[in-house]
């Protein structure tokens, strides 16, 4: 009887995971022209939603850039002040496409609606580039109110 219950519970859990709907985030970075349109999804049952794909919308105030990454827990010491818990950690090819050989990493906290950008420019360090809050946006997204992009601070 116990075994049967265990099996049923397991099946139910797996079903729940497989039926988990994707989560979509559309937001503009407060004070800047750009935003993000992200999809959080599962690679398949029984793995929870941890994969992130999407666009850095108007990343240079003109063009969109493909981004991708993962949802994971991370120390609050590398997040926007006051933010804690898991982040959507996405890498952005924007700088490379403009001929700058540097990594660009967004840490987005969807509970606190905050973001932080790090840049690795020289094969040595990883620097705090910018940080801020975001506001949910309608889809399709329109240009933010700012006149500059978040990566140009």
């Amino acid at each position, binding site marked *: 009887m116990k075994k049967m219950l265990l099996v049923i519970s397991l099946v139910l859990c797996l079903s729940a995971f497989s039926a988990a709907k994707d989560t979509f985030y559309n937001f503009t970075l407060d*004070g800047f022209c750009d935003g993000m349109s992200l999809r959080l999804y599962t690679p398949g049952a029984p793995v929870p939603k941890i994969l992130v794909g999407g666009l850095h919308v108007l990343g240079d105030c003109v063009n969109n850039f493909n981004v991708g990454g993962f949802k994971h827990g991370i*120390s*609050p*010491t*590398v*997040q*926007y*002040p*006051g*933010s*804690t818990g898991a982040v959507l950690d996405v890498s952005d090819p924007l700088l490379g496409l403009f001929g*700058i*050989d*540097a990594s660009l990493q967004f840490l987005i906290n969807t509970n606190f609606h905050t973001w*932080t950008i*790090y*840049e690795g*420019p*020289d*094969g*040595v*360090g*990883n*620097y*705090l*580039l910018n*940080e801020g809050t975001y506001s949910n946006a309608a889809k399709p997204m329109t240009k933010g109110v700012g006149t500059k992009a978040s*990566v*140009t*601070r």
Partner: protein
Amino acid sequence: MTKRSLLLTLISSIMVLTICLAGQTDKKQTPVLADAGAANPFGEFRSFSAVLNGGIGRDHDRKIYRSGDLMRLDFENYYRITDLRKLTTQSIHPDRCALVQAPDAGSYPFSAYHDFKIGRSLTGEKETVDGHVCQIENVTFTSTDGRFVTIKMKLWKAEDMNGFPIQIEAEANGIKLTPLHYSNVSLTPPDPKLFQHPAKCLKITQGSQMGTTKKDSAPSRPAPDDKTAPAATQPPQKPQQ
């Protein structure tokens, strides 16, 4: 049986010792300001203020101030103070403060390459930049951690500003970085108040939000500039831009 036990004990001991030693080898070493080889050219200027354009943060008219190991960078409605030695950044917003475990991009190159081997050579050439006659110096930073990272820089050192590098071109392993340009440079020590915390940010713990730090709980890490900046009761300085 006894021999076997002894052998197993010996093997286990060797394995434990090996793991311990490996752990020590991998342990991240704190950057030291005493550089191997020549002196760090950016260590010569421990008190100044300037306006930064360019650099890895592609800053535009960013007002910066250095006092000792601290560098302040003004943003639109808040400021950051990077500890150039500890490589941490205090982010001071009107309503919150936090200690971020990374240097601000605008602190480059003053926060970089402390544990690198440094080679310096004056080229003997002179150029005028923004009306300042500059000596040109080539500087090479070479990693000492076996990763063979080499940073080459060309500094335009203003003769009338004790050789302050008002223009810097850099390349990392042959890849050019965004050039840096400093204007309105003043070698007069900046106002110490610029590096003080507002009263409500006196105890900045890692990732803490202003006003949420419990008074009776010890911070997970002491405020990094406790030694260099006295506690302040004044509100944060108004950003310069």
